[in-house]
């Protein structure tokens, strides 16, 4: 049963019953497991949609454009949270991706082999810190450090709407920064593994043609590693968008839309975490779960865009090389 879509391997029929059965079991077994992931998302989407129905019926599409969140008067709107999630996640990516890729590059290419293990290990250790602890560290250490930094930024670059407003320390900038720190280990570790997995032959070919190490990386190594690194970034984005505890402690939790990084903000995930444990009205709970559904949709959209990006730039070499 030659799989028409099996990429790299040609499954050889051995003619012996045992081998075929083994391969069949392998294929169907892994297929079953993979479908369970799809099923899981399906169940999640279903449960979230059913639970949000009361809010969807009440507000319809206005939910996405209203800026008020008022549990007392039962008016709910998701716009400030959508804004907050997008801004904080992209800010986190903006800060984390250069640092993570740079560190991954360093660890995969430059660092002497004996040092690579320990330093990679240290970076991955960042992932072991509980999010609650990040939040507390954020309030007690990061925010007091940010306050003078924000004051300085406000003084010197205050003409930019990005840096206006009182320098409380708590706000979108603190939120983005904490998220950046939290997603760095994932992006670094996975990118490092991907870079390390690029076959030596590719680099050797480039060196044979006289390229510097940087040129080798920019060329064949990057084309090989590109998909994996994008995967790492997507994982990072997912983590940033869905993070609750740490963000909610430093972002100010104010559902408002403001151009300034110093203003407080609110994300979909934080609002959900903050209010779900206490919400008792059906409409309130439904509105909160609709926020979760919106986050779900945002993740889908961003993922689709990322894939489109990869697909459009991957024509040719990347797929070809793997064959």
């Amino acid at each position, binding site marked *: 049963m030659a799989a028409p879509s099996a990429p790299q391997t040609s499954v050889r029929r*051995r003619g012996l019953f045992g081998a075929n059965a083994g391969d069949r079991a392998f294929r169907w077994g892994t297929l079953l497991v993979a479908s369970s992931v799809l099923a899981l998302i399906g169940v999640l989407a279903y449960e979230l949609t059913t639970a949000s129905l009361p809010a969807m019926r009440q507000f319809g599409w206005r939910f996405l454009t209203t800026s008020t969140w008022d549990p007392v008067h039962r008016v709910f709107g998701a716009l400030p949270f959508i804004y907050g999630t997008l801004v904080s996640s992209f800010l986190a990516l903006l800060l984390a991706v250069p640092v993570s890729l740079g560190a991954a590059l360093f660890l995969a290419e430059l660092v002497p082999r004996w040092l690579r293990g320990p330093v990679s290990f240290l970076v991955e250790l960042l992932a*072991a810190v509980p999010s609650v602890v990040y939040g507390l560290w954020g309030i007690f250490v990061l925010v007091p450090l940010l306050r003078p930094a924000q004051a300085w930024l406000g003084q010197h670059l205050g003409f930019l709407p990005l840096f206006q407003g009182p320098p409380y320390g708590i706000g979108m900038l603190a939120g983005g920064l904490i998220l950046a720190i939290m997603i760095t280990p994932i992006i670094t570790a996975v990118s490092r593994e991907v870079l390390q997995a690029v076959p030596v032959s590719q680099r050797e070919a480039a060196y044979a043609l006289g390229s510097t190490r940087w040129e080798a990386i920019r060329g064949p190594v990057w084309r090989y590693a590109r998909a994996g690194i994008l995967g790492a970034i997507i994982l990072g984005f997912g983590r940033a968008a869905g993070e609750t505890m740490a963000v909610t402690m430093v972002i100010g939790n104010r559902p408002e839309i403001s151009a300034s990084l110093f203003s407080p903000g609110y994300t979909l995930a934080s609002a959900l975490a903050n209010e779900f444990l206490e919400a008792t009205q059906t409409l309130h709970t439904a509105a909160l779960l609709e926020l979760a559904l919106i986050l779900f949709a945002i993740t889908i959209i961003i993922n689709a865009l990322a894939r489109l990006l990869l697909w459009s730039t991957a024509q040719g070499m990347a797929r070809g090389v793997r064959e």
Partner: protein
Amino acid sequence: MSRRQSLSRSRAREARRAAANGLMWAFAALATIAALVPLGMVLYYIVIQGLPALNLAFFTHLARPVGEPGGGMANAIVGTLILIGLASAVGLPVGILGGIYLAEFGNHRFGAGVRFAADVLAGVPSIVVGILVWVIVVVPMQGFSALAGGLALGIMMIPTVIRTTEELVRLVPVSQREAALSLGATHWRTVFKVVLVAARGGVITGVLLAVARIAGETAPLLFTAFGNRFWSARLDQPIASLPVQIYYYAIAPYDDWHAQAWAGALVLVLIILILSAAARYATRGRLRAIR
């Protein structure tokens, strides 16, 4: 173009290329430092806050009400280990086998769908996973359990493991597969004995990242494993865990509970450190040289 001109041009080009090279290394080194600085600050803070409260009682006693000395998080430590075990029992098979499926057979629409689903799952807030498991496990069981908690955490492990496994398996050079196949190995044997072994380092990294992340999650456990003031290692009863205990202590007004919360955070990081070191040691090998 005269020889001199062409020579100076190529020297200039060489200089540019060397400069670009050097710049990259400088940037990479700085980036690594930038990544390590927050780590240092956070770890330092945890140690400074937590070490004073770390004593034998912490590891052997249960929680005591506020103001009474000698309290500890013994049941939470055991609980976290059990939950990590249960989560891995769910997350590892699904993640690794799923990743293998995607890498070996997944180049069609269904595979794209699964890949997409895994990436979307990565973005689901932990509290939503907890609510889901509450609806499908806790309410029917009419009670909280370690199993429900393990399931919730296991679900959260899946995206990282599946993604990493797929990418790393894909990157194993075709030459290695072909070598195995040409020796008469079946597909599945090739995958498990050659490909996965070659990709093992990366897969382990994915697993450890996933474990590190779920070990510190609070929100999904609040509705599933719940928490337990008493000793319990039973899988069908509520179970204590470090992140939940840390959370309760951190939000209380008392300084000695705060100190214990930090001590708990320190112990959690140490647990992950030990698990990671053990996993890396157990799966070290010489195959990295073959690339």
